[in-house]
């Protein structure tokens, strides 16, 4: 018998495949939902199987060495949850690169995951576009003491002022603090920063710690403000008593006002005129492999504002007891730093997918459950949103790595509890504002080519752009 495929065979085969594909395409969809999860959930119910929950999370989350966030969930958290809820199955969907774009596309198609990790201002945009389930009625029913048990710095940012909904539960909170190298201070006989140091102290310390070689070239800058995102400097506006935008409409830009300009000028002066605070490009040009975690170990700067994700890296790269953490310096009016949460939100589509209650139970378990929130600290090294877990966070970190014993981790919890750590003052249409503000801030701080006074005009343009956007939306 010949194995040769004749043209006739090929035609028959092709026609067969095409016919099968056509029949499959024309077959009726399972009832009970117009989405992937909806379909699966409805199908599961009908078969008496477990209800599925699509859980989309960052997969780069863990700071603790050796812990993979994806593995932790699948090996520990999910099995633990199944003990209490055998009726559900959680499907892990790692966000990956470009996650916000993908989720947006999913939302347009009605196929967004049931539960999604996110952060401001992305979540605010999703809320504005009506894509999120309002969790407030569920919180009122099941977590009535929510306002007391969650850290306000994170919890408050889960409420959307425009749509008046509870957008999310807190995963963890990131806080900006000052990390400093003790040998750099000791070398020049400069006192370590005190808890209540002011911006004047900060500037003077930075200049005292800035070192130059024989040619007058700076070999180490005294300090560095939080880099990577120039809008991070807006916290200093609040420290000077100013506002980024009005509190009512969130559309009137106030960055051209006296207090804001004074704060911006303080930064610019110390960064560009005195150069005691390193410019972003100077640090980027230093050649160290990681400009985020490497500046202190490489002695590029003596102190630096950074996120609460430095501990294990610094423990690895610096001698035990040679570095510590302090508060952000106090401005003329206030002391403010970034306290921004990662969050879990729920796609509005769950209302029609048949898994609404199961989804909420899961979100409640990870958002308000002590076991999971403790593990946000234990397994990821980040600060949990649940106040009781946050209190235990320094202890958990020291259990993981004994070299953190002499580090004042309590400063960070203190920053959260005293209200020093706050969410960003976001505009109603943040991306529209950023389109104007980022180039202006880059011109001032990255290139040093413009004075801060350009913000008077830019500020006006931002306000106009906000109103134009609102008008366009009808």
């Amino acid at each position, binding site marked *: 018998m010949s194995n040769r495929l004749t043209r006739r065979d090929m035609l028959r085969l092709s026609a067969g495949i095409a016919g099968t594909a056509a029949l499959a395409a024309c077959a009726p969809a399972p009832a009970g939902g117009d989405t992937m999860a909806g379909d699966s959930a409805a199908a599961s119910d009908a078969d008496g199987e477990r209800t599925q929950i699509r859980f989309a999370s960052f997969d780069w989350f863990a700071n603790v060495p050796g812990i993979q966030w994806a593995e932790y969930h699948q090996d520990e958290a999910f099995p633990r949850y199944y003990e209490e809820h055998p009726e559900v199955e959680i499907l892990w969907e790692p966000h990956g690169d470009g996650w916000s774009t993908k989720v947006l596309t999913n939302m347009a198609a009605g196929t967004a995951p049931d539960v999604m990790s996110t952060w401001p201002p992305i979540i605010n945009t999703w809320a504005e576009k009506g894509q999120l389930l309002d969790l407030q009625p569920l919180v009122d029913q099941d977590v009535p003491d929510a306002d007391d048990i969650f850290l306000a710095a994170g919890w408050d940012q889960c409420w959307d002022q425009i749509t008046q909904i509870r957008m999310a539960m807190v995963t963890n909170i990131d806080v900006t603090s000052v990390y400093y190298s003790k040998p750099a201070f000791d070398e020049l006989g400069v006192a370590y920063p005190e808890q209540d140091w002011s911006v004047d102290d900060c500037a003077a310390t930075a200049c005292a710690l800035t070192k130059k070689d024989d040619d007058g070239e700076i070999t180490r800058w005294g300090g560095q403000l939080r880099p990577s995102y120039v809008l991070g400097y807006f916290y200093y506006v609040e420290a000077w008593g100013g506002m980024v935008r009005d509190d009512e409409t969130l559309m009137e830009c106030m960055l051209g006002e006296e207090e804001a300009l004074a704060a911006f000028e303080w930064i610019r002066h110390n960064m560009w005129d005195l150069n005691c605070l390193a410019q972003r490009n100077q640090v980027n040009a230093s050649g160290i492999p990681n400009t985020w975690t490497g500046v202190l170990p490489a002695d590029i700067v003596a102190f630096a504002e950074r996120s609460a994700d430095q501990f294990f890296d610094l423990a690895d790269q610096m001698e035990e007891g040679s570095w510590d953490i302090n508060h952000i310096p106090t401005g003329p009016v206030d002391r403010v730093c970034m306290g921004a949460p990662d969050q879990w939100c729920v796609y509005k589509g769950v209302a029609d997918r048949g898994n609404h209650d199961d989804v909420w139970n899961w979100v409640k378990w990870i958002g308000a459950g002590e076991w999971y929130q403790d593990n946000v600290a234990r397994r990821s090294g980040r600060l949990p949103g649940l106040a009781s877990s946050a209190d235990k966070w320094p202890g958990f970190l020291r259990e993981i790595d004994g070299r953190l014993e002499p580090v004042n981790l309590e400063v960070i919890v203190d920053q959260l509890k005293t209200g020093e750590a706050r969410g960003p003052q976001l505009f109603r249409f943040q991306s529209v504002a950023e389109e104007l503000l980022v180039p202006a801030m880059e011109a001032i701080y990255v290139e040093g*080519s413009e004075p801060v006074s350009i913000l008077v005009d830019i500020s006006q343009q931002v306000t106009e752009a906000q109103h134009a956007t609102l008008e366009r939306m009808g």
Partner: protein
Amino acid sequence: MAMRLARQWRVGSSQKRQDLITAYLCLLPWMVGFLSFVFGPMLFSLGLSFFRSDLLTSTFFVGFENYRDLFNEDLFWKSLRVTFIYAFSTVPLGSCLALMIALILNQKLLGLGIWRTIYYLPTVISGVAVSLLWLQIFNPRAGLLNNFLAIFGVEGPSWLYSSTWALPSLIIMSVWGVGANMLLYLAGLQGIPTHLYEAATIDGANSIRKFWHVTIPMLTPTIFFNVTIGLIYAFQFFTQAFIMTEGGPNNATLSMVLFLYRKAFLQIRFGYASAAAWVLFAIIITFTLIFQYSSRRWVYYEGEAAR
């Protein structure tokens, strides 16, 4: 075309019909893919460009309002300027360099295969990896480029961190990908009949005259192809700007595709972004057609001469 195929069907023999069926079946997967994933979305985006839409909540027909707003937006013109500078710098630069390398690799060099592989290799590396690599090369203090310039006593600029130098940096970086063009030129060069060079030698032509009067005319179809495709790609440049500069500093590297990406996915204005995409499409098609039309005057196909 359809009429012709229908006629063929009617008058053709049974064998021909079977051939046609086979051909259609083979074409079907591509046609389905093209209609579903290219042509369909293109038509959808054309329609969308006449609506004010975020694809999530509301969609209003606004006629040409998106196009009008686009032409009134300063940032759009800035992105257009950046795109034009990039396209009309990278394409001639890349083409000349690719031709130069191809000419060298067309000689009888030792280890020719290795050299060709080396020059082609960068083409197979992903855009993201290339961008990360060039970030290091352009590092003002520790980067290769400024250290190289320092050997000659030249203090290099801040490259990607300067609004003056950021776009030239991306243009310089574009030469990294000349390997693909080089390969096509190489194929073109090897397709030039040797008897033309022999005839030119007998006529007393030196190397330069042979290059201008034999090599270049015979390569014009390859040049035409490379430049056309190069322009189409250059007008759509995105990855490098997105990864290396995010369009900055001060929007100095804001390409049109990055502009429309921001409008679509950050400001969630899909109708407006679609309008921007169609303006870009119109620009690309206009230049392609102009180039196509002009090719009649300067592109030489050997086969045509024989007809």
